[in-house]
């Protein structure tokens, strides 16, 4: 096993699948020669040739729309949108075609493609480079939406996404690209889409998060553990269709629930999780289920990022409030 960053694990997954399946092709803006702005596709063009890893014109809709045709014809395109904030020009293709081909043709045609994009803030980037759009994608029937938070899951989830018979939006937490390191098996392996992971067991509070926000969630759990508080930490990993069972089972054990994510609050993933907990575990709740999320504001440019992002202190404060809640 090698120790890889989350970013390197994504590269490793791409290389692994390209090596074993010629139908896998990788393209997008600057992904070929340069290896992408974050260097995720570094070396792929050199290893697999320009035909299988190539640069496209700056045309997000074109990238995704052409990938639809390629996928229908039997290829497994893995396309990169340079930043999720630039996915909007491709939205028509994603919402009108990628997600609908199977349903529209009653299964005669499918578009099993992967749309990779870095997402989230904390990277001191210009405007439009820091958005968290998972709830938007999660709201589109026919798509699967996954977000890894560890190198191990980054590789396993991406391999699953590439092999999945349905289209997958694969969101990469840019802030965690080089911040998280882990031993990663060298061979191919999959992490099941639709399954959350109980990262650490506990019995007083269920804390659910995903993506880069897992960094603060882990820190908060460790600090609470040092105080003798037992928190069960769940990495959701798949946004849609999400693993309600693992979340609800955990809440049935702990009786308290907190969802934490970077994306905006209203109509967000935490809201969906809270609703699910209320519907399926109302009888065991010892505190109102809570959500701690980014505010419903436009993601600020770097001088204002601290007003958006949440530190471990925010997570700790809210976790303590839920833990200590008494009716």
């Amino acid at each position, binding site marked *: 096993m090698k120790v890889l960053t989350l970013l390197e694990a994504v590269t490793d997954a791409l290389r692994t699948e390209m090596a074993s399946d010629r139908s896998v092709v990788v393209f997008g803006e600057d992904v070929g020669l340069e290896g992408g702005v974050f260097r995720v596709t570094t070396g792929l063009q050199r290893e697999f040739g320009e035909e299988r890893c190539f640069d496209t014109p700056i045309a997000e809709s*074109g990238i995704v*729309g052409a*990938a639809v045709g390629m996928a229908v*014809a039997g*290829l497994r395109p893995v396309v990169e949108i340079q930043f999720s904030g630039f996915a909007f020009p491709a939205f028509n293709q994603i919402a009108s075609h990628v997600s609908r081909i*199977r349903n529209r*043709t009653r299964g005669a*045609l499918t578009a099993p493609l992967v749309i990779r994009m870095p997402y989230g803030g904390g990277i001191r980037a210009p405007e439009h480079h820091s958005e968290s759009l998972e709830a938007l994608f999660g709201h589109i029937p026919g798509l699967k939406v996954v977000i890894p938070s560890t190198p191990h899951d980054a590789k396993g989830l991406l391999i699953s996404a590439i092999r999945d018979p349905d289209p997958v939006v694969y969101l990469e937490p840019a802030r965690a690209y080089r911040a998280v390191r882990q031993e990663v098996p060298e061979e191919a392996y999959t992490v099941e889409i639709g399954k959350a992971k109980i990262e650490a067991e506990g019995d007083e509070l269920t804390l659910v998060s995903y993506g880069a926000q897992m960094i603060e969630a882990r820190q908060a759990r460790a600090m609470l553990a040092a105080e003798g508080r037992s928190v069960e930490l769940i990495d959701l990993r798949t946004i849609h269709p999400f693993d309600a069972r693992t979340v609800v089972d955990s809440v049935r054990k702990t009786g308290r629930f907190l969802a934490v994510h970077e994306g905006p609050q209203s109509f967000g993933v935490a809201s969906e999780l809270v609703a699910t907990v209320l519907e399926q575990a109302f009888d065991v709740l010892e505190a109102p289920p809570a959500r701690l999320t980014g505010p419903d504001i436009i993601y600020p440019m770097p001088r204002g990022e601290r007003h958006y992002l949440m530190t471990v202190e925010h997570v700790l404060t809210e976790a303590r409030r839920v833990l200590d809640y008494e009716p």
Partner: protein
Amino acid sequence: MFESYDPREGRLFSLLDVEGKLAPPPAGFPLMSDEQALAAYRTMVMSRQGDEWAVSLNRQGRLPTYALNKGQEANSVGALMAVRPDDWFVPAFREFGGMLVRGVSLQQYYLYWYGNEAANHLPLEKFHMMPISVPVGSQMLHAVGLAWAERYKGSDRIALTFMGEGASSEGDFHEACNLAGVWKAGVIIYAQNNHWSISLPWSKQSASATLAEKAFAYGFEGVRVDGNDIFAVYAAVQMAAERAREGGGPTLIEGLTYRLGAHTTSDDPTKYRSDEEVQQWETRDPILRLERYLLKKRLLSDADIVKIREQSLDCARSSFEEVEQAADTTREDTFQYLYREMPDMLAAQMQRRKT
């Protein structure tokens, strides 16, 4: 290839005049055989009769909103006859005749407009066709990707896609042409310029004199053909298909035509265009023109014409009756094709809808 028909010089590629007189095609250009011309005629009449019956069904309250093809039949019929049955066909939504050429049954076609997705179950190996695409201008990109994939797989299949002239205002038209040019994709983008995008005329759609000339800015050839002339459409598309198959890249074909009917059954074209204009185009009707040619060549008699029309209408009537009697969409149908395997969450939602 189409140097003598440069749209920037105002040229239009046409072979069959309104009287049904056929000019010899230029050297190297293919000519439809008599047999093909007769087959094309039958398909165009089927499309026309099927269209008119659909309008009647709509007025009877038996068919929801329907988009008409009347007057444009030669475009998709000629184009689909000019490519191989295993070349990709990526339609917009006014290619009824072309769909018939590809083997889509009348029942299937009506089932679509009747409002059942089951109509789009067109197995790839048999049809090599994408379903009707409603979001204007979004489908040409799929054709570019399909063509790219076929070349990648080492096949010589090409892709033929359709759009209306209004779709040239969409960003995806630009992206599709640009990618097709850069990738030298084996694709034919066929724009049916029927003069009206619902209520908007070409003059308000674009400041370009023609749609075809836009191709040159993307680094490939564009040609304007008389879209009401089946011989010209067939020849132009076959030439473009040969180029695409040989690795010569894309062609943009603008078929100059006219929508003789409304945009859809929900539209009232008298609000935005004059009767005189419509009447003028009625004299250029693609079916009449081909009919005159076939009559002159004695490939068809007046009695044949009546018979073909009657048979087509009968076929339309009986096909639609079958559609009306077919089973409706089930709840399972609406849930089970979102993903190959239904997620638990969806299964639970489906269960809750059980009454």
